[in-house]
């Protein structure tokens, strides 16, 4: 009981400072962000959470990361690393005004889904003879996910008035969204793992995941070429 409670607490704390994935802040929300002047904690919390729950590239990556993680300790470790990477670049990106082409950043995020699916197929060990450090990879892709969002937020005109508090609120909102998304994904995965065919279809599932990553990759690269 105590161990479970500690796990849950650690989980919540580790997730606290997370940032968001890299997708469109919808048009109407964008007009809100643009017209906001001054501190608006509630709306930015909501936008952050909504952003995470509706960001399919982010959700696909999370499914890939926790696909073979069974122990709560492992999940907490990986998600914390992802969170750390994510938050770092979201905050630094917005505060320093550094940005990149959002199509290219989103293409890298799509590639992270393909990478993780290939990793789950055990592809790296089979073809390279070793498995790249999975924790490091999750951290680095976390940096890209956060940077993508920082770029998106900066495309909107953000008032410097209350900027830090608004970005922090957004960050915390993303965190809440991530906990919700993870819960849903975990519940789904746990049910499925009880099924005796889970492992038999693991390869097929990761193939589907990889296809999703490739679709997003093609979508973003086309967008980049068209602009």
């Amino acid at each position, binding site marked *: 009981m105590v161990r479970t409670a500690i796990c849950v607490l650690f989980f919540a704390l580790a997730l606290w400072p997370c940032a968001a994935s890299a997708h469109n802040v919808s048009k109407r929300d964008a007009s809100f962000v643009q017209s906001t002047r001054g501190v608006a904690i509630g709306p930015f919390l909501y936008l952050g959470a909504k952003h995470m729950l509706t960001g399919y590239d982010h959700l696909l990556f999370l499914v890939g990361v926790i696909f073979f993680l069974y122990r709560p300790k492992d999940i907490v470790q990986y998600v914390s690393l992802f969170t750390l990477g994510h938050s770092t670049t979201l905050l630094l990106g917005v505060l320093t005004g550094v940005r990149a082409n959002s199509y290219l950043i989103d293409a890298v995020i799509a590639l992270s889904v393909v990478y993780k*699916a290939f990793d789950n197929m055990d592809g790296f060990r089979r073809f390279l003879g070793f498995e790249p450090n999975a924790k490091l990879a999750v951290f680095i892709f976390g940096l890209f996910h956060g940077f993508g969002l920082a770029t998106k937020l900066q495309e909107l005109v953000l008032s410097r008035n209350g900027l830090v508090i608004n970005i922090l609120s957004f960050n915390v909102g993303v965190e809440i969204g991530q906990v919700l998304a993870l819960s849903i994904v975990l519940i789904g995965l746990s049910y499925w793992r009880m099924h005796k065919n889970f492992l038999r279809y693991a390869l097929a599932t990761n193939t589907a995941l990889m296809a999703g990553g490739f*679709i997003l990759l093609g979508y973003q690269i086309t967008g980049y070429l068209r602009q």
Partner: protein
Amino acid sequence: MSTIVHEQGTQQNSEASIAGPTKQQILKATGVAFVIAVVILFTVVLPAEYGIDPLRTGAALGLTSLAKTVATPAPAAVSVTTVEHGPVVVEPGANGEAPIIKGVFVAQPNRYKIDSRELKLGPGEGMEIKYHMQAGAGMVYSWTANQKIQYEFHGEPDTKPANAGPDYFESYEKDDKVGITQSNGTFTAPSTGIEGWFWDNESGDEVTVKLVTAGFYDYILQNRDDIKTRLQPLDPK
């Protein structure tokens, strides 16, 4: 406790199966993923998102119309309001009288209003003063600040374009970088709505803004700390 035992059990299974897929199986899976992605991308995603439809599947499924609506976001080039301000026509005066020039003023049924106020903005504080005006109505304005202040001159039409949110506004002039210390001019409302300034004191000191206006507006809207207050303008003596 039973769940922990169960989890450990599955983990052992998973480790056993991780050794499972062979090189051929992985290659095949990757190839299948790639082919599925390319097919979906070209038949569905590209037609729907960008209107690129090489296989005509988008047209067949009616997806390309989706791309058209997405590609042209509504707020561009909307609210075209013709201000009743006809072309300037000069007619020669008959019998040595003065030439007549038409279309140089917009007549109004009522007297104009005046407003004069001093606004103090603390460090990091922003506020708005806006005037409700009819399309085509005019206003002369001057404001000065005791140090540079960031601002935006903008309007919020009463009738927003379709698809526009409640926070829709149109920008006339802004400086959110360095700021300025004064602005003077004559303004003609492009549409019926509230027209005015947002000032944003991004400095560390208090800034005083002195604003004077005269024009055909019916009320003043102050927005400070997200509290909107309706203020009454004065009649000129």
